[in-house]
């Protein structure tokens, strides 16, 4: 479809996206810097107890500007530490998903025929299953507090959409003249895939990876929320929100601070990903 028809379907706030995208990218940069340097920049450790300051609201003492939890642990340090863990798990799980999805999609699209039909059938069947349900069972059975299992379990369910997108693009790329030219020049199948198909897929892969990070962070936070993810005294945003939700009557800041950080993080990634998709991915137009 030409761009003009798309402009009709978009509403005004969607047309204003570029500015929102820049803001989202800036917020992500700030949060990443906080996750990288925040925990060390504070005099406290995420597990250090301070019996003199239990459940202090934000802004009351100079030592703990975001307040403390019921064990006197500094909320600022715990939040940035949780942000760090959530980001690490989100990015690594996305990497796992991207690897599986790209391999699956390019193989199906490139080889085609019966293999393609069978591989895509598998994707269709998996699509109908409730992911979270499976991740929950797997995490409860095998990986309580085991980050490697957690990563694999989360990453193994996110690749389906990417596999579909990559397959569709590989199929259409396969018929283009420059691929034919590369084959004619004597390159083998894997060489063509590596040098000519994959670079052309990079844009859409980047878009879907950006959209996948927040999803993975949600999965991880959710598992931690249920007590299946990272184990105390370590914290991720999910386990902090869980702890905060239990005490929201007496100490609402314990819920509001990590929930606020998670909201900003998720919204920024989604706005950036959606924006990038409109710019880079022509299949969506």
């Amino acid at each position, binding site marked *: 479809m030409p761009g003009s028809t798309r402009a*009709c*379907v978009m*509403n*005004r*706030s*969607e047309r204003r996206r570029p500015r929102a995208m820049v803001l989202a990218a800036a917020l992500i940069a700030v949060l990443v810097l906080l996750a990288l340097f925040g925990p060390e920049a504070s005099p406290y450790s995420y597990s250090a107890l301070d019996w003199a300051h239990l459940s202090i609201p934000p802004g009351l003492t100079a030592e703990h500007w975001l307040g403390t939890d019921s064990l006197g642990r500094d909320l600022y340090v715990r939040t940035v530490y949780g942000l760090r863990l959530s980001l690490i798990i989100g990015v690594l799980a996305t990497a796992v998903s991207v690897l599986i999805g790209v391999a699956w999609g390019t193989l199906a699209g490139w080889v085609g025929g019966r293999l393609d039909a069978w591989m895509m059938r598998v994707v269709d*069947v998996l699509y*109908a*299953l*409730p*992911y*979270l*349900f499976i991740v*929950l*069972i*797997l995490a*409860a*059975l*095998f990986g*309580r507090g085991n980050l490697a299992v957690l990563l694999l379990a989360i990453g193994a369910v996110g690749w389906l959409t990417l596999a579909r997108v990559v397959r569709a693009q590989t199929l259409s790329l396969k018929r283009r003249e420059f691929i034919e030219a590369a084959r004619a020049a004597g390159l083998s199948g894997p060489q063509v895939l590596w040098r000519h198909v994959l670079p052309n897929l990079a844009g859409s892969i980047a878009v879907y990876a950006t959209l996948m990070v*927040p999803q993975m962070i*949600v999965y991880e*936070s*959710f598992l931690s*929320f*249920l007590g*299946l993810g990272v184990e105390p005294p370590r914290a991720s945003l*999910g386990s902090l*929100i*869980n702890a*905060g*939700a239990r005490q*929201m*009557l007496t100490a*609402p800041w314990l*819920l*509001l601070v990590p*929930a606020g950080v*998670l*909201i900003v993080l*998720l*919204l920024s990634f*989604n*706005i950036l990903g959606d924006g990038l998709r409109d710019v880079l991915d022509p299949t969506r137009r």
Partner: protein
Amino acid sequence: MLGYALRRIAGIVPVLLILLTVSFFVIRLAPGGPFASGRALPARTRAELERLYGLNRPLLVQYGDYLRALAHGNLGPSYSMRDETVAGLIASGLPVSAALGLAALALAVLSGVPLGVRAALRRDGALDRSLAVFAALTLALPSFVTGPLLALAFGLWLRWLPVAGWQPDTPRDLILPAVTLALPLSASIARLMRASLLEVLGASYIRTARARGLGRARVLWRHALRPALVPVVSYLGPAATYLVTGSLVVETVFELPGTGRYLVQGAIDRDYTLVMGMVLVYGTLTLLANLAADLIHAWLDPRVRHEPL
């Protein structure tokens, strides 16, 4: 139509069987057993218990036994909760979970469809613009964030609604959980409805209907809504999958006595039969909901019925 429905229903059985088989063996792969955690039992007692429940027999024999019992409608005893059967546990929790899921679905459809129609008819209006923001927010945020925040705002600060918990026959307890569960669904439905109605309204047969002198309202009700609803209806399948998993979260957040808690706790306790029962119930529900969405789709769009499967 009937033939199509029957073929689709028959297609569910093998999928369920595969799901059950895979779950059965995956659950057994996990380290530990139902009597290995918690209170340490003397070795003889444990062996006796395992013999009693048939857990010492070969895995394949146990699998056969499980399927045979299942064919007779017997889901087995719970290993972690004494004197309880899996069927009894599920029967006590399912009404709560079902009420939550159905309330959320009704809420999402009844708010999402009118919102989407209105936004499509007044494009770039105030409602259309706030819909974009509403959708971006609710779709990005998981219910374990929106749930506690809503409980904090409406339960603790405004004191309009109960924060958590469940007493029988008090629908007020269900409002916040159902709203939490319905929010992202409502946003997706509204967005889908808006996009598809805009597309339909641009079609030439709508212009023809207008050219014949039919009024706006009549064109909308008689010609545009039915085809515009098709994408919304096919979305109800994935929506049901979302409701099934989402209810697990929301039940945990609001401490509702539904079936959701049995899945996680059962898996942690290695309560094999309980987890299998949950897989069976939630798997069947998901498949049936997807089927129902497909059947409504076939009813709205006759072309679907005549496609070979």
